C-alpha cells in the first residue's frame, strides 16, 4: 500500500507540534522515523492514521484521501500500534489479538473459522503461542508489546504503523520483532529511537521540532554531522565484518571535545 502525505500540520494550543510535513512512501517499503524526544514523531504517526482532529494537510492511501474513508475502511488498510496501550480488563492474549479482526466483522458477519486461522497465524508469527491463554495483567511489558503487534498483524493491513515498537523488549525480541516486521509483505512506517536499528530501514525521515528535516536512504540521511547537529551526540561509524554493515557508537559531546565531527 502506498502512502502520501501532503503538508501535514498539527498544533496544540499555540505550540506547533507537526509543521508542514510532506512525504511519500512506496508500496512494501519499510520507512523509519527518527528524531529527539518531543520532535513530533508520535504526532506525525497519529496524523498518518487520521486519528487526530483539526489536522491540516492531507493523507492519501493508494490515492484515496484519508478524510473520505470511514474509520472502518481505514482500519481495514492501516494497523497502528501505539506506545503503552493498556487495559485493566482481564483479557487473555487471544482476546487482545482477536480485536484485530474488528474492522472485518459486523453483527451480520461474526467471527468465523477464517478469522480464527488468521489470529492463530498472528500468534505463531509473534511467538506468543505459549502465552495464548494468559491474562493481560500477568504479561511483561515486552509480552504486551508483542501481543499488540500480533493484533496489528491479525488486522491484515496494507500499511502497518508502529510507534517505537522495540521499547520494553529484550534484545532477542527486539531483533526478532524487526525481522518479523521486515518480512511482512506490507508497507511499514515506524518511529524508532535506536539509530542502529534505524539503519536497517529502507528509507528514513528525520524529525526536528515538528519538521521533517531530512528524508532518504539511511546512509544519506544519518551522517555523523547531522546526528551531531540534531541528536547532540558524536558518533563513530564502526564496521561489522560479519555481514559487512556499518553501525554507530555514540559519545557525549562533553567526553569527546576533539571528535572529528565536532560541531563546536
Amino acid at each position, binding site marked *: 500500500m502506498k502512502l502520501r502525505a501532503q503538508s501535514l500540520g498539527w498544533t496544540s494550543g499555540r505550540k506547533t507540534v507537526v509543521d508542514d510535513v510532506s512525504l511519500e512512501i512506496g508500496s512494501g517499503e519499510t520507512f523509519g522515523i527518527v528524531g529527539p524526544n518531543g520532535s513530533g514523531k508520535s504526532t506525525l504517526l497519529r496524523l498518518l492514521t487520521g486519528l487526530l482532529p483539526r489536522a491540516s494537510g492531507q493523507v492519501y492511501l493508494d490515492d484515496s484521501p484519508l478524510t473520505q474513508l*470511514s474509520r472502518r475502511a481505514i482500519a481495514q488498510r492501516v*494497523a497502528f500500534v501505539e506506545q503503552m496501550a493498556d487495559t*485493566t480488563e482481564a483479557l487473555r492474549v487471544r*482476546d487482545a489479538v482477536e*480485536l484485530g479482526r474488528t474492522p472485518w466483522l459486523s453483527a451480520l458477519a461474526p467471527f468465523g473459522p477464517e478469522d480464527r486461522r488468521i489470529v*492463530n497465524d498472528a500468534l505463531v508469527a509473534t511467538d506468543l*503461542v505459549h502465552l495464548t491463554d494468559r491474562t493481560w495483567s500477568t504479561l511483561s511489558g515486552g509480552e504486551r508489546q508483542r501481543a499488540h503487534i500480533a493484533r496489528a498483524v491479525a*488486522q491484515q493491513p496494507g500499511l502497518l504503523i508502529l510507534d517505537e515498537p522495540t521499547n520494553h523488549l529484550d534484545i532477542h525480541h527486539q531483533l526478532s520483532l524487526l525481522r518479523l516486521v521486515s518480512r511482512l509483505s506490507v508497507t511499514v512506517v515506524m518511529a524508532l529511537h535506536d539509530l542502529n536499528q534505524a539503519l536497517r530501514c529502507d528509507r528514513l525521515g528525520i524529525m526536528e521540532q515538528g519538521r521533517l528535516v531530512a528524508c532518504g536512504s539511511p546512509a544519506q540521511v544519518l551522517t555523523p554531522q547531522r546526528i551531531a547537529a540534531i541528536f547532540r551526540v558524536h558518533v563513530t561509524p564502526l564496521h561489522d565484518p560479519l555481514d559487512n554493515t556499518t553501525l554507530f557508537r555514540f559519545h557525549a559531546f562533553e567526553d569527546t571535545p576533539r571528535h572529528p565531527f565536532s560541531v563546536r
Partner: protein
Amino acid sequence: MTHMTVPATRPAVPAIIWPVAGAVILVLAVLGGVAIGETALPFDLVLKVLANNLLGASHQVNAIDAGILWSYRLPRVLVAAACGAGLALSGVVLQSLVRNALADPYLLGVSAGAGTGAVAVTILGLGGGVIGMSVGAFIGAASSFAMVVILARVAGGGSAQLVLAGIAGSQLFNALTSFLITRSANAEQARGIMYWLLGNLSGVRWPDTALAIPAAAIGLLACVWHARAMDAFSFGASAAASLGVSVRKVQVVLIGATTLMTATMVSLVGSIGFVGLVIPHAMRFVVGPRHGRLVLASALAGAVFLIAADIISRILIPGRVVPIGVVTALIGAPGFAMILVRNRRQA
C-alpha cells in the same frame, strides 16, 4: 521455523444451551417472584392464573388471590426484571466506555440527575404537564451525566477524577432534589417522594411495564449490536478508533441508551444503587470480559438479582416493605468493597 499449532478453544457444550438456560432461569425467577410474598401463593395457583389470563383458560381460582397475582405481583416482578437488566447494562456500558471499573449510573450521578428531573416535573409541574415524569428524568439524567463528564475532563480526565466528579454531581443533584421537595411539596408529598427515591416497587402497575420493558429491550439491543465495539474500547478510545470503531457514534448511541434506561427506571421505581456496579463485575468472573457474552449475562443476572432483591424487600420485615434500594445497597456495598480490593491486587 518448527511447525506450531495453537490449541483450539472449543466449548464443551453447544453454544445454544446458554440462551436456553438463561430463559429458563429468568422464567423461574419471575414465577418465584410472583409466588413468594406476604401472602404465599401456591405454585399451581400461579400457573392457573397465568393460564387464565394468557391462554384464556378457565380454571376456578380465588378472585382475591388472582387479583393480587395478576394486577400487583406480576407487573411488579416484570418491572423489577426490566430495571435490573437495564441498570446492569448501564453499568456494563459505562465501565467499558469510560474504562473505569467503578463506573455505574448511581456513582456517576446519572440516577441523582434523573431523580431531580422526575421530582421537578412532579412537584413544580415543569413542562406544563406536556412532558411526563420519564421525560423529566431523562433530561435530568442527561444533564447530570454531561456535567460529570465535563467536570472530570476539565479536572484532568483520569479515573479518579471521574469518580470524584460523580460524587460532586450526585451530591449536587440530590441537594437540588431535597431543595425542590422542601420548597414546594407538602409533608405528605415529601414523605412519598423520599420513600420513592430510596427505591420502591410498591406502586408498580401494568402501565409501567409498557415503559420499563421497551426501555430495557432497546438498551439490550443497542448493547448486543455494539458488543464488539465495546470490546475494542478495552485499550482506550483511540485504540478503538484505530480498530475501525466510529467512536463518537458508538458513544452517542450507547450513552443515549444508558441514559434512557436509567432515566426510565428511576422515574418508575426511584434510584436503586449498586446493581450497575456489582452485577457486571460478578459476571466478568463467570463469563469473562468479552462483551458478546458479558452483555447478555449481565442483563440476565441483573434481572434475576432485582427480582430476588424485591422478594427479600417484601418478606424481610413481616408487614412492611423495605425499600428495594436499601436491600440492593445491603448486598451491593460489600460487593463494591470486594471490587475495590480486587482492583488493588490487579494494579
